[in-house]
């Protein structure tokens, strides 16, 4: 039986096939599709499971770990920067181990395409001493997700599965295996020396972990010294690769002329940490030189140790930033075999960067940013992670560090300026609802306690929009579609000790501008503090919200002077320059316009008009 699947759907399938019944995740590109796919497939095959969107990755990992403490098979799913959030639990779990099976899935984003960093989760595995699988294709991802779960159950330790974006969002025909139905009951065996280990016991657990990692590094199942197709004549150059980097290298090698290709042998590493010890030594003896191709940091290279014969990221044969491309591999092969570098006549044709992403037509965030700039000009706007990071295009964001940092940063801007007696410009933290739940709440408690003063501008579109509209705790919905309690943002904020809270519809621009101005005035009053303005309007990517929106007919009159103010200050994709117009006037793109009418008030010439509905 075969089925076309996205890499992420294949991972879900692999987990299901090997008896995973508990899955916890926080959405993040490129990992977001795994949890919904798991829930959907389980329901199709009537497998009883529990899947949940945790509020953040640390909670997801702690939850999945606890299920695996009771002998069940579980998974925690996140993107690579999510593993940073879950790091505290991750490193500790490596010592404690599990009695069931636990797969941690951390999806990397070399490039980066949709992340703050290009970090390599395999490096995290090496740091934490957690075995890691690196799948190369969607088909292999299904297989390795299952292998990871079985290995975890076998060695009693968590195992990491590290896909990269190229795999997560690749689509391929997958051979399906049968699904193991795990009807085990959870059984928690009290072992305080293990589950609540004190430092003395931790040392013993660490020693035990070292032994298990050493055993894996000698396990013949992970010996990679036998290549898929060994040439008959000995080849001078060996290439060691894992994951998508292996797939890419394999395709490049098969595109080379035969006489060139036969100088190379490609070896595939399934388990980059712990690296099989003997295989590395064998290949060093077998070949004159070795090239290591891996993404995005030199994890295999590090474990092979410093060797004259090895080239890769450490000696600059492969650049140490950016995603791998066929051109990089071709260049690396030429450097390895000391052949002339491939001429790249196309390089200067690789034209200017393309159109940058921007907020969707009708996005309530656009209206919120426009109001923020009007209400609090010359302010410092501390931003956060989500669709609204695109506020940078509107010149309405000054920082973007990591999840929840807008609130800590706005607080610290206040403290820094106030303690030095400097002038304090309007200060705002701009954060979305999902990010606020993720890690904004502790930051708000901290800022209130410290006595900071700023406007917390909470853009509540009642969803996790950037990653594909996963529900938040306020939605009253859970990952599996069941009804849950709808938590109130206002009550949570009140509970953090905030007294000044205003809720406004961002489409009501004048009200929003007034609310933001009043909020900042409150911040600066002698007994003021943090004022919260919640801009509440649903994301238009949610079909129901889109349906509920009244579609207005928008036209741009001849009063348009082509000044371009609307394009710059509002940047709606539906506002475009007229084609072949000498005055470069603006028109409405009927394909993208959703008819929200929010652009009408933006035009200084009043040329944007509502002409019908």
């Amino acid at each position, binding site marked *: 039986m075969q089925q*076309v699947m996205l890499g992420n759907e294949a991972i879900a399938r692999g987990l299901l096939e090997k008896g995973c019944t508990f899955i916890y995740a926080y959405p993040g*590109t*490129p990992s*977001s599709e795994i949890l919904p796919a798991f829930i959907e497939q389980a329901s199709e095959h009537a497998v009883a499971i529990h899947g949940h969107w945790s509020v953040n990755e640390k909670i997801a990992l702690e939850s999945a770990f606890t299920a695996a403490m009771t002998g069940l098979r579980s998974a925690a799913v996140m993107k690579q920067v999510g593993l940073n959030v879950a790091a505290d639990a991750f490193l500790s779990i490596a010592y404690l181990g599990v009695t069931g099976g636990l797969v941690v899935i951390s999806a990397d984003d070399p490039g980066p*395409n*949709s992340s703050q960093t290009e970090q390599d989760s395999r490096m995290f595995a090496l740091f934490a001493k957690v075995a890691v699988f690196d799948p*190369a*294709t*969607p088909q292999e991802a299904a297989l390795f997700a299952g292998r990871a779960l079985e290995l975890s159950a076998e060695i009693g330790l968590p195992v990491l599965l590290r896909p990269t*974006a*190229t795999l*997560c*969002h*690749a*689509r*391929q*025909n997958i051979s399906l295996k049968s699904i193991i139905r795990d009807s085990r009951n959870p059984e928690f065996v009290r072992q305080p020396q293990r589950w609540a280990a004190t430092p003395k016991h931790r040392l013993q657990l660490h020693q035990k972990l070292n032994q298990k990692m050493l055993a894996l590094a000698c396990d013949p199942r992970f010996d990679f010294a036998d290549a898929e197709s060994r040439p008959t004549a000995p080849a001078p150059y060996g290439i060691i690769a894992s994951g*998508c980097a*292996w*797939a*890419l290298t*394999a*395709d*490049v090698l098969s*595109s080379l002329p035969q006489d060139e290709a036969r100088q190379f042998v490609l070896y595939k590493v399934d388990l980059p940490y712990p690296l099989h010890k003997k295989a590395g030594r064998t290949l060093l003896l077998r070949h004159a030189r070795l090239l290591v191709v891996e993404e995005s940091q030199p994890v295999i290279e590090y474990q092979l140790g410093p060797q004259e014969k090895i080239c890769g990221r450490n000696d600059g044969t492969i650049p140490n930033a950016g995603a791998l*491309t*066929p*051109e990089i591999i*071709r260049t690396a092969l030429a450097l390895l075999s000391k052949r002339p570098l491939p001429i*790249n006549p*196309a390089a200067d*044709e*690789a*034209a*200017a*960067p*393309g*159109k*940058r*992403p*921007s*907020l*969707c037509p009708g996005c309530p965030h656009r209206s919120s940013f426009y109001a923020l700039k009007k209400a609090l000009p010359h302010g410092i706007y501390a931003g956060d992670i989500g*669709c609204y*990071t*695109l506020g940078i295009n509107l010149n309405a964001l000054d920082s973007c560090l990591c999840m929840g940092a807008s609130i800590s940063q706005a607080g610290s801007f206040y403290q820094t300026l106030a303690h030095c007696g400097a002038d304090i410009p309007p200060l705002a933290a701009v954060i979305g609802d999902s990010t606020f739940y993720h890690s904004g709440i502790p930051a708000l408690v901290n800022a209130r306690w410290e006595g900071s003063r700023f406007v917390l501008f909470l853009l509540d579109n009642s969803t996790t929009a*950037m*990653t594909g509209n996963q529900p938040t705790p306020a939605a009253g919905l859970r990952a599996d579609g069941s009804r849950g309690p709808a938590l109130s943002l206002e009550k949570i904020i009140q509970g953090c000790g905030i007294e000044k809270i205003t809720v406004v519809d961002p489409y009501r621009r004048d009200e929003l501008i007034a609310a933001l101005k009043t909020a900042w005035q409150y911040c600066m009053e002698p007994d003021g503090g943090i004022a919260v303005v919640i801009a509440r309007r649903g994301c238009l990517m949610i079909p129901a919200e889109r349906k509920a929106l009244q579609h207005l007919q928008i036209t741009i009159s001849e009063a348009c002077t082509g000044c371009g103010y609307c394009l710059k200050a509002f940047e709606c*994709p539906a506002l475009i320059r007229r*084609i072949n117009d000498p005055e470069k006037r603006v028109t409405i793109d*009927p*394909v*993208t316009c959703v008819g929200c009418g929010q652009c009408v008030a933006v035009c200084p010439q009043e040329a944007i008009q509502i002409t019908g509905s």
Partner: protein
Amino acid sequence: MTDCKLLIAGQGGQGVVFLSRLLSQTALMAGDDFITYESHGMAMRGGSVTSQVKIGNYRSPLIGEKSADLLLVLAADEFQRNRHFVRPGGISLVNSPHSLADLPSENFCGATAVALEHKLAKAVNLVFCGWAAQHPAFPYNFAQIREAIKLMAVSPDIETANLRALEIGRQLSIR
């Protein structure tokens, strides 16, 4: 056994991902191996998007410079940015209201205006696909694409609209 490296370029929201899914569904029904890659996340918000479709015996979905057999472009602006991926002798087919430098005049069509005329604003991609499918470089024929659309449709209404868009595209002859 078809062997074709295909790059689809456009801007977020134009249905680039849908076209790559349609091609992989067609490949599946034709019994061909394939691997594709789609942009997700931040890149989806109206920015430049590409999908890569490799039909044949491939392991990685990535297409290198000067190696695509066929480049399909849904937004004219994306042609210049992606044409260096086309191999010598490869074909570019572009949705553009006007002719473009370095593009033979028979290789563009104004699918957007035609789709709007027929009130199919959301199916510009399929109008374009219907037109492009007539080109000899296109890996599958019109009937095969039709079957794949039928299989992928989530409702009869969508199926009707999509097939109509494809047919309208087919009537835009390749000059």
